[in-house]
Structure formats: C-alpha cells, structure tokens
C-alpha cells in the first residue's frame, strides 16, 4: 500500500524524528559524518533569534522529507526585512519514490514557499546547495545563481602565535557592536543585522564549535572592528576560516592588525591556509589581495530565490554583504 504523507508546518514533537532522518540521510555516504545532536538542532532551529522556517512531510511518525531554512534579520536599502538560508533539504531513503515527479521534497517545498515566500515575506531564500539539490531547485523551485563562489586564501606559514598590540579576544558581543555594524553597513545595500543577540547566538552559543573572536577598540573604548575565525576541515581541508569580518573600509591598519590576529590563531591551530569570502565589490577584496591572498575557484554556488520584484540576482551580487557567518555548515 503506498505511503500516505501529511505535508505540514513543523510542530513540537517533530524534533527527534527530524534528527533521526537527518542523521540517516546525511550520514548515508559520508564516513566522516558526525551525527547531529539535539543540542545542535535546538541551537539552529529553536533558539535562532530571527525565528524558524520548517515544513515536513510525515508518514506514520517518520519525517519522510523536510524543507527548512534559517532566517536572518537583514537590512535592505535601509529597511529591515529577512533572508532565509535553505538548510537540511532531505528525503528519507525509504520515501524517495514516495511521490511521482517532482518528488516528495519538492512537494514539501511548495507550501513552504507559499507560506514564507512572495512579496512582503522573506525577501530572499538563499543557499549553497550541492549539485543535485541545485538541479532540483533550479528546475522546480526557481533557484538562480547569485555568484559562483571564489575564496581568498593565504598560506599561513611560520610566525608568531601572539596577538598584535591593540587586539583583544572577545568573550561576548556587547551592545556597542550594532553601532559598528551600522557604520560599516552604510556602503552595503543588503546585509544581516549584526547585533549582540545575533552574534552571540551565532558564535558564542553554538554547541560543539570553537570560534575565536578578535576585536579592537577606539580611544573611547568603543568597538572599532572585529574578526571571527575557526578551524575547519570543511569546506576546505586544512583551513582556518574567517567567518565574519566587520571592519570599516577606511580603517586598513585596523584590518591589518586583525588579519595578523587571524594568522596567529591559524598557526596556533595548525591550519595550512587562512580562507576568507568577500563580495567582489568590497575594497576588502582588493586589500586582501594586496596582503598576499590569492583567489581560488570552488565548487560552491551562492544561489537565491528572490521574492521581491524590486530586486534580482544581479542586484544582490553587487550589493549584498555576505560572509561565511551566513552559512550554517561552518
């Protein structure tokens, strides 16, 4: 007898069945896969300060498919709205033939986008899909490429493990970070709002990941710039990833000090390369190249479904300040 599916929004009690399907699906062909814990799921989906976006297809208590996203509060042309990052797209192996084309995942995604998409809802749904998800999304959901992603990379090399003068480690973000964000965001058309609540959730409350936050203060003691870094084998082996870079464009010396702090930490962590991601249009892209970073190709596509007719992928490519902070897998 064919399976019956209840395609519906998330409801309390779905957490453990979602986790079970997630760990089955993403561990399928990946020997290095580490099962996700309930604490990690709660952090991402229950405690995200910007909310929750999940639809599931349930069959006899099993989560057969999921369309989910992590929302972010963003400023677009000075107005507050939201972007969502598509995450954890999945169909349970025993349900992959559960519905005819377009398939169970797409059937779960359609009501997701009806609820959260469209003018006045989430302005952009974006992601960095694997190729199979990209193909499905392009054909059935309207994915378009914002950017084929290149990364800045510098071999770490020998040197000091000590932090430069004037750079401190930040244990928690304070309220002064928002003033720094507002100053930096003046030249950006779109960006995730970097306030203490978001940044502490993203970098200080995430279970199982150690992020190093380096900061500098001005003469009055206010936050003048920060960089966040972590060691990771994904998406690039041997990498230390600059997760977030918030430094005013007119402060290259401060940027150089934070770069040195990142390099010192990368050395201490045994990383081979320091890797950063910048939009092409920011002066930081060129400045990092002047500092010796080289741009390298990747297989990653930054894709989007733009849900406001005033914007498109061309505009996003030229105006959206996006960092690895807005990518859940790191």
């Amino acid at each position, binding site marked *: 007898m064919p399976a019956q599916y209840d395609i519906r929004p998330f409801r309390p009690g779905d957490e453990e069945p979602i986790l079970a399907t997630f760990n089955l699906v993403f561990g399928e062909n990946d020997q290095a896969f580490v099962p996700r814990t309930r604490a990690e799921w709660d952090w991402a989906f229950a405690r995200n300060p910007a909310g929750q976006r999940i639809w599931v297809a349930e069959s006899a208590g099993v989560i057969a498919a999921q369309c989910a996203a992590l929302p972010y509060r963003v400023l677009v042309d000075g107005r507050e709205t939201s972007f969502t990052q598509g995450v954890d797209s999945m169909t349970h192996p025993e349900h992959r033939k559960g519905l005819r084309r377009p398939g169970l995942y797409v059937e779960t995604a359609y009501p997701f986008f009806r609820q959260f998409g469209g003018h006045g809802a989430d302005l952009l749904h974006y992601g960095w899909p694997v190729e199979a998800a990209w193909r499905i999304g392009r054909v059935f959901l309207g994915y378009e490429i914002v950017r*084929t992603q290149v990364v800045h990379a510098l071999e770490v090399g020998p040197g000091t493990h000590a932090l430069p003068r004037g750079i401190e480690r930040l244990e928690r973000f304070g309220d002064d970070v928002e003033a720094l964000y507002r100053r930096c965001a003046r030249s950006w058309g779109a960006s995730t709002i970097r306030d203490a609540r978001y940044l502490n959730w993203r970098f200080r409350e995430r279970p199982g990941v150690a992020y190093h936050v380096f900061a500098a203060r001005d003469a009055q003691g206010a936050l003048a710039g920060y960089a966040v870094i972590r060691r990771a084998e994904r998406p690039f082996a041997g990498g230390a990833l600059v997760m977030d870079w918030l430094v005013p464009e007119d402060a290259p010396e401060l940027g150089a000090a934070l770069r040195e702090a990142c390099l010192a930490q990368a050395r201490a962590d045994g990383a081979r390369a320091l890797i950063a991601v910048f939009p092409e249009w920011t002066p930081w*892209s*060129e400045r990092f190249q002047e500092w010796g970073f*080289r741009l*390298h190709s990747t297989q990653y596509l930054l894709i989007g479904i733009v849900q406001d007719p005033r914007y498109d992928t*061309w505009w996003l490519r*030229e105006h959206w300040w996006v960092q690895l902070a807005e990518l859940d897998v790191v």
Partner: protein
Amino acid sequence: MTAFTLEVRPFRPGDEELLLAGHERALRSAGGGPARERAELRWRYGAAPHGACVALALDPQGQALAGLAATRHRALLEGSEVHWLEVGDLFQDFARGGGLARAQPLRAAGEAFAETFGGFPPEKHPVLYGLPNRRAHRFGLRVLEWEVLRSENELVLDLARALPAPGRAVAVEEVARFPAEVERAFAGFAAGRGAILVRDAALLNWRYAERPGEPCAKLLARRGGEPVGWAVERGGLLLDWGVRPDDEAAVAALLQGAATCARRGGARALAAVFPDTAPEFQLFQRLGFRVRGTREYLCFRSFQRPAIMSWLFQHWSYTRGDTLR
C-alpha cells in the same frame, strides 16, 4: 495576440537589416539602450568563418518582432571537433502585444532556435552560450532553459607595476593578420583543456583583424621562428591569449608586449578574463594581476553530455574574446 510567423535558418545576406530594424524597435519599446551597427551585424553573422544561425518572429509585414542570432564557432570538446553557437543578439519589441502574450514571439523564436540548432554534432550544436544583458539573462533563464555558468571576474593589472623581464629566447611581433601557423601554437595551448574554441587563423583574423571599429593589437610570439603563442589587446583589454602557462619566457614576452600596446593606447590597466578554473587564473595573479568583479554572467545551454554545468565550469577554457559584445 500578436500574429507572427517563424523563420529559423542559417543567417543569409540581408538579415542584418531585419536584425537592425528589430533591434531599433526593441530599443524604443525598452526606453533606450546601446544601439547596434549594421557593419557590426554584417561582420558578426555574415562574415563569420563558420556561418551563423537566426530565429526570427516576423509580423505579417515581414518585420522582425523578436529574434535571436548566433555565430557558429569550431570547438574542441574532449578532443572531438564540434561547433558551438555564440548568441550575440536577442531582442523583442515589447511594445507589441500585451500581458503574457508580449513575450510570445521571443519565446517561440528561442524555443525554435534551440530545437533546430541545439543537439548532437555534427549536424547540430552541443552548446550555445553568451553574455546576456540583464533583461536577456532574466528571459533566457526563465523561458529558454539557459543556465549561468559563472559570475564572471576579471584579472586586472595596474600598468605601473613591474612585469617579469621577457628575456631574449622568445620574440614577439605585432602582426596585421595571424598566419596559418598560429594553429601550431594553439595545439600546445589547448593540450589538456577539455573544451575550447579553436583558434585558427580564420577565427583570429575574423575576430580581431576584420571587425569594424577600433583596431586591435595582434601579437605573435615565436621561439626560433616557431609560433608559441599569441595575444590580442584593445583599449586595455586582453581580448585573446594563448600560450602554454608553463612557458614562462613566452608568457613574459607576450604579457610585456600586450602591456606595451595598452600603454601606447593610453590605458593605465590591462584587464583579462579567464575562468577561475583555468591555470591562467593563478598564473596571472602571480604576475601581479588582481581579481575584480564584473557585471557579467556567462550563460549557456547544453544539449549533450558531458557539457553539463559542472563539467563546463571545470573544463571550458575561454578568454574575453570568446564573448565579444
């Protein structure tokens, strides 16, 4: 509903008039934009070494309501010779018709074009590609099954920077036309590249010696009389480039030559386009070029494996001259 008939066929003399008039109406309905020149259209499609293809939606008076035109190029795809199509024009008079029907002539022309010319070689073309403007990009992706291959970056050299000394082993000459023997240099350059347009003298001379407008500087590098590479520069743009990336002397000599030509023309920078997967992307950064964004998306439609997006992304080697605007 706007009445129209389709003509889908090889380009023939006189089509430039249909394209030009169609473009002008399309520009008026779009509120302006860069105009096309008759001589440019005649050259691009009428004089191309391997011909060109068009699909036109004609009204009862024989005027083009919409159209699509592409130039045929020899290409190597995993060592096999095929022909690709470079789409250079796509237009629609949006003042005719209303609502969804407005785009119907262009949709019909685009679909008929793909059906007629896209497909397996030798009769058909496994890949069509182009650098669409924003409007054509939107239409192509949503209606004509185009895909983005790459958000294009360029490599830019500040001409005040020092370049590696060229040495004496390789001589670079500026030529009026490329000789037939340039294809021997192409064979060395193309080795190991999965997909590439064939740079024979016919293509290079058509593209860079015969194109109306500002002339290009055409450079040929020889070692002991044997061609080892070429470069084409115009207005600070490195339009074409072909030299084995491990031939350091030839790379240095050609780059010095291209920089000299760019300076002579008043340029302060030299800009090149290579895929970020090509060896030149790292090579040029090592030589002092910096990567900058452009406003371009390279788009394509594939009709044959292995030329799907991920394969083409990794294996297609091109320069700015492959997508002349």
